């Protein structure tokens, strides 16, 4: 039982947790900045990014794919900004134009090129394949101390852990500038903070988290984790510090419960095969958000924009 858990479930759960936390952290700030859907846009343009990387390098090396995806994400962010400013178009519509166009380009390129031989397809990018990230060589918990077994860990685990660590570090280091410029941009500029650079840095960080996560868990989890845990956390507290901690907790909870439900849920209902873990993690995060919407202690609006009908 233990051996099986370590072999089959430990690594996917850990990867799910790291991916969820890495996305949830920047998600807190994106939501407060009314940029929640940047996560949506980024995760859609990952596909054209990896297709272009594949066409350029002719291989499926992870590093090239990651760079391609990150490049596409940054390009998308710049294009959205350009369309917004140049065309004087509201942010939502600008995002919609850019990410759908890039996604369409990605799909077309994919169809046109001969990628059938390699493991690169749209469904994989959308849904990920968390279940496949198993630790073959593990024999049980003691394998954690076995260098030979550790060397055979799936690549995604150390990569996702590293990205998660970097995101946590960036969030801690730039906490004050992020908080000040998110709350009061004018004041932030007046005290000399590089507001535009902070905003761009946040989006790039989100893009890096999304790119690292999509390979393992697919882009649905990425969008769900950018939005659901921070949104639920916002309804639990009125302190940003506490909100971020809640969001991390919700992200971990969704990752663990989602994986468990996907793997064992069908057995409880008499089914034989597991369902998509990525989809289930997104569904659980939605359930958490739903409960927070109904029962969260700070769910109602208090500041400006209060709904007079509710006052």
């Amino acid at each position, binding site marked *: 039982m233990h051996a099986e858990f370590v072999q089959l479930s430990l690594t996917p759960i850990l990867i799910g947790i790291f991916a969820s936390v890495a996305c949830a952290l920047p998600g807190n700030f994106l939501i407060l900045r009314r940029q929640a859907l940047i996560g949506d846009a980024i995760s859609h343009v990952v596909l054209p990014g990896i297709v272009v990387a594949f066409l350029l390098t002719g291989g499926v090396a992870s590093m090239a794919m990651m760079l391609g995806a990150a490049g596409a994400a940054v390009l998308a962010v710049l294009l959205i900004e350009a369309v917004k400013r140049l065309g004087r178009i509201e942010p939502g519509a600008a995002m919609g134009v850019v990410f759908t166009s890039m996604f369409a380009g990605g799909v077309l390129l994919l169809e046109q090129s001969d990628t059938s031989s390699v493991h690169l397809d749209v469904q994989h990018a959308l849904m990920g394949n968390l279940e496949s990230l198993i630790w073959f060589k593990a024999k049980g918990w003691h394998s954690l101390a076995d260098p030979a077994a550790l060397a055979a860990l799936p690549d995604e685990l150390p990569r996702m852990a590293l990205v998660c660590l970097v995101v946590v570090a960036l969030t801690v280091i730039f906490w004050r500038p992020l908080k000040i410029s998110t709350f009061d941009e004018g004041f932030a500029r007046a005290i000399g903070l590089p507001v535009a650079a902070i905003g761009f840095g946040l989006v790039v960080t989100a893009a890096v988290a999304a790119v690292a996560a999509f390979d393992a868990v697919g882009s649905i989890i990425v969008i769900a984790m950018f939005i659901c845990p921070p949104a639920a956390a916002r309804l639990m507290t009125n302190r940003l510090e506490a909100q971020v901690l809640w969001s991390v907790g919700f992200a971990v909870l969704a990752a663990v419960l989602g994986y468990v439900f996907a793997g064992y849920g069908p057995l409880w209902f008499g089914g034989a095969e597991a369902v998509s873990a990525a989809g289930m993690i997104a569904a659980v995060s939605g359930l958490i958000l739903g409960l927070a919407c109904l029962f969260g202690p700070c769910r109602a609006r*208090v500041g400006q924009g209060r709904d007079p009908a509710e006052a």
Partner: protein
Amino acid sequence: MTPTMTTAARLAGLPAGLDLAAADGEALHPEAAAESPLSIRGLTVSYGEKPAVFSVDATFPDGALSAIIGPNGAGKSTLLKAALGIIPRLSGEVSVFGRPIDAARARIAYVPQRASVDWDFPTSVLDVVSMGLYRRLGLLRRMRSEERAHALACLERVGMTDFADRQIGQLSGGQQQRVFLARALAQGADLYLLDEPFAGVDAATERAIIEVLKSLRAEGRAVVCVHHDLSTVESYFDHVFLINVRRIAEGPVASTFTAGNLQATYGGRLAAGHIEQLRLGGGTA
């Protein structure tokens, strides 16, 4: 003053002696500009194809309360924001205590309009005030007890100590304005720039704010407010800057805040109403 000008002034029903030359910006004394807490030269800002502020020169005095006044849409807030680099300018130079503004940011405190932020933001009153300590704390250093005490003292000065742990969304408009002022105080600056600090606040808050601003003046700091209430200009401020896209006039309240200059700033009938109001206000004060 030529006879024809006197005719013009009489035509408009104004007191003779209005100095037209004031409007075309006589050259500033370079040394006065060098020492000024805020000196602006040739500032132009435009939204689209229409200048919001055109070629404005301004020099605000040290150790004084100054008001920027003008009608709605005259570019009062725009002038302040463009001077601070919050919105881009088409042309112009800004110096603070004789140095380029970016080298002097530590000496400036800024109070934005209350409506410019989302008060639903998850943060407490004390938290907002301690944002004023950012330049001192930097990225990572934790707040020491004396810095916390300083932030609390700033709250005390605006009478908000009891609200330190309140979520900012639960405050009234006047209280929000006091929190913003406390944050500016926490910056410990030499120049305070306030954008409509009295807009939409209750009478008690207005008194509290002006007391704080007067105490800053007593400490020798410079204060510049965008201000819209003409009836309080004379009792609150030492120096006025009149603007309506262009610089209209600037100088001590006693010599500059005149019916003629107001007429030039607000134009025609509108000004007549304001001036009438002013006379009534002055009569009862």
